[in-house]
């Protein structure tokens, strides 16, 4: 593997760290591939571990879908092994574990780390013309702190309860009084939180301090902007979640009384003294992080999609500055909209009105972004390959996911659809339809830079087509379910008479979910196959402008033989009078 794909040739030319010099091959291997401080290796480590967790989280989703389509029936093939004691079927408690772990894994182990950890690490230094991150050792730590988190979650799933069962929102008193495996879940997330905080401090410092000469802030690619703003969001929002998690843990272990009110009757028998806590406090702290988290999970994808589309359309990004300003607006407003998750929670209904207004406002910058993407492809020369297709798919899905948010912002309507599948439809359109499709596009786009080989474009397009069809087949009908009041987080919704006629719709959704899983097998084979047998890629296969395309594929440690001088922005495609349809940022003017 080291011979061509993972070329190490740069180790001799641009070394500025000692690990390459050890004569012991084992030490050298560990230093280069395991405990590496090279941002690219760390990025790839994040990429591979996130992809593995994506598979696990996806399988959990399929189990959820199985239960909703064929409740209390034996799961074929694996049911007998997994649920021997229950006759091969999912138990109600385990169903709660399934959706709790699905959400936890997808949010904290897949979407956030693949965007910020994998692409953030890999791309930021390359795109701004830096040799590495500002704090390489801290960067390495931020990856290795993920492993205790992985360990905690796996341990939690190995307990007799098979994992946390209180939903990823972990509302007390449920998560304190009855929360199985709560402590392990909390500890795991604290590790994730510290890891992300180390990462975000690193990204902010790197972007502010290590840009190549000529790389002004307004010459940075949107990918870097998206990641930069995301890092700021994380730096300010994550400490709140981490503190809240610690409070939750203390509540469970030492009965501190932050969240439990007086006079609780656990099991309706035993009155408990909760020392006068307030359950809503948790919700405020939790959503203060978890609403910005929504943007943490989509802004980097927005940035990458902007770059892929501009390059794919051979045309400047339309409205570069408005795009940046709208990202800044989203991140600012993102801190004052969290209450829209709590319209019927029992907090002041006057407060709901102010959160409703800020939530309506935040739709504006998102809309501006969509219009600008449309302006970007308009009049272009669209190169219809996998990255562009996924970028277009991102826009198409983001339109749906963004628009359905309007219904939730409207407080009276939200009262009807909250806690239903409408919400599930909405955030899966944003997180899966948009972010994950964007990530797939980004993998096709930067794969040649990472591994020196192209992914197969035909199978990439097949992957896109099937994913696109099945994403819509899976998530679009959920809007209708939600309108009917069909509840999320219930092991058997058909206990309610009013929902019984919705079983066929759920079976349709489950079939589509299986189709979606099958489509990802195509991706997996393409990805792994291309690692070894993909067509050799040139340094700049997409004829793109940004700096990462000026260095050899699988760039050496230290990235640039010589720090480049930047002369222009990253979107000078089809510049009138220029003799080529692209104009790299570091190409000296004639």
């Amino acid at each position: 593997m080291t011979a061509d794909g993972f070329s190490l040739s740069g180790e001799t030319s641009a070394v500025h760290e000692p690990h390459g010099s050890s004569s012991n091959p084992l030490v050298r291997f560990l230093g280069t591939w395991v405990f590496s401080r090279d941002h690219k290796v760390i990025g790839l480590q994040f990429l591979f571990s996130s992809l593995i967790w994506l598979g696990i989280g996806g399988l959990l989703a399929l189990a959820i879908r199985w239960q909703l389509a064929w409740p209390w029936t034996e799961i074929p093939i694996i049911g007998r092994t997994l649920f021997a004691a229950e006759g091969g079927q999912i138990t109600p408690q385990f169903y709660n574990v399934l959706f709790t772990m699905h959400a936890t894994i997808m949010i904290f182990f897949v979407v956030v780390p693949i965007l910020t950890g994998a692409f953030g690490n890999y791309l930021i230094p390359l795109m701004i013309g830096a040799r590495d991150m500002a704090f390489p050792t801290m960067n390495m730590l931020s990856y290795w702190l993920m492993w205790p988190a992985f360990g905690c979650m796996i341990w939690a799933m190995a307990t007799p309860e098979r994992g946390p069962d209180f939903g990823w929102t972990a509302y007390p008193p449920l998560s304190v009084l009855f929360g199985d495996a709560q402590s392990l879940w909390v500890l795991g997330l604290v590790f994730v939180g510290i890891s992300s905080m180390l990462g975000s401090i690193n990204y902010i410092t790197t972007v502010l301090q290590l840009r190549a000469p000529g790389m002004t802030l307004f010459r940075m690619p949107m990918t870097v902007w998206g990641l930069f703003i995301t890092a700021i969001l994380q730096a300010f929002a994550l400490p709140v979640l981490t503190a809240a998690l610690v409070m939750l843990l203390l509540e469970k272990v030492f009965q501190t009384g932050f969240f439990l009110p007086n006079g609780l009757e656990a099991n309706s028998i035993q009155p408990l003294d909760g020392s006068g806590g307030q359950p809503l406090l948790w919700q405020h702290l939790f959503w203060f992080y978890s609403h910005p988290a929504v943007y943490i999970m989509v802004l980097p994808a927005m940035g990458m999609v902007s770059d892929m589309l501009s390059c794919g359309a051979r045309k400047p990004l339309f409205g570069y500055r408005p795009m940046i300003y709208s990202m800044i607006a989203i991140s600012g407003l993102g801190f004052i909209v969290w209450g829209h998750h709590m319209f019927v929670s029992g907090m002041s209904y006057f407060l709901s009105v102010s959160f409703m207004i800020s939530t309506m406002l935040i739709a504006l910058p998102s809309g501006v972004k969509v219009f600008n993407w449309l302006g970007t492809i308009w009049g272009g020369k669209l190169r219809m390959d996998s990255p562009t297709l996924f970028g277009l798919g991102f826009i198409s899905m983001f339109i749906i996911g963004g628009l359905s948010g309007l219904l939730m912002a409207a407080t009276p309507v939200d009262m009807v659809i909250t806690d239903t599948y409408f919400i599930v439809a909405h955030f899966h359109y944003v997180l899966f339809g948009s972010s994950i499709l964007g990530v797939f596009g980004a993998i096709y786009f930067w794969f040649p830079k990472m591994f020196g080989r192209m992914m197969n474009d035909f199978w990439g397009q097949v992957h896109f087509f099937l994913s696109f069809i099945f994403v819509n087949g899976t998530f679009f009908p959920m809007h209708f379910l939600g309108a009917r009041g069909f509840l999320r987080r219930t092991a058997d919704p058909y206990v309610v008479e009013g929902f019984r006629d919705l079983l066929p719709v759920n079976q349709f959704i489950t079939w589509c979910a299986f189709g979606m899983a099958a489509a990802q097998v195509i991706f997996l084979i393409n990805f792994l196959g291309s690692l070894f047998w993909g067509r050799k890629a040139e340094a700049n296969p997409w004829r793109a402008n940004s700096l990462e395309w000026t260095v050899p594929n699988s760039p050496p440690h230290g990235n640039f033989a010589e720090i480049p001088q930047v002369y222009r922005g990253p979107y000078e495609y089809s510049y009138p009078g220029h003799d080529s349809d692209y104009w790299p940022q570091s190409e000296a003017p004639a």
Partner: protein
Amino acid sequence: MYRFWGLLFFAVPIVGTIVYALAMLGVAPFAGLRLPANYNQAGVEIAHLYNVIHGIMAVVFVSTGLLLGWSVWRFGGRQLSGGQELGARYFTHSNLLELTWSVAAAGILVFLSLYQLNSWAENKLERPLVEIAGRMQPQPPLAKVVAKRFGWEFYHAGPDGRLDTPDDVYLENLLHVPFGEPVVLQLESRDVIHSFFVPGLRLKQDIVPGMQHFVWFKATSPVELEIICSELCGWGHYTMQARMQLVSRSDYDRWLAEQSPWKGFAAKEEQE
């Protein structure tokens, strides 16, 4: 091939809108995939809002979706050929366009913010008033709803009209309510957070232990509705449901008189 992709992106707004329209109109096989039948006066306004927002969404969804499809259809080029792909038009921004769509979108959003305020006030802010002792006061609750893992307790105020008195009528998982008049309910929880959800009334309220919540509605007809818990409360959450029996005022009074004083109350007191 790019024509094919153009069609695919065209299909999103077209198929999406058709399916949605059929569902909202209740056409088979999409019948039943819309808001459930409504038996609450305030629910009419919610449905209206729901439709207005869907109308706005449909306009944006179809116009942007068709624009996307058209862009792919019209500007889709060839596969990466290695050659120059000249011919893309070079333009970078337009302040006029940015201003236009920002102002238009902001206008719609401000309109929506204001337009929904009345309905929210009706549902959550303006508890019905009645005249008590010569003054207009918040209407007292008809019954106390106590949520617990995994069931509902309903304490109907007895003939004295007050809660927590010996003539309260207690029922498990069955709530009697008169229709045709404003009704206030008091919600409490014994253990964890639950949520009082009545799809037929388009009414939902989380119940936080340690707090008291009030909901109100004016039911329109004598039907039996389902009450379901919509906040995860543990392994048995899915089983947590009850029924709401809507009856005329005279039937309600007669029923209350027959039950009261509720025989079980004394027995329950003794037990505790």
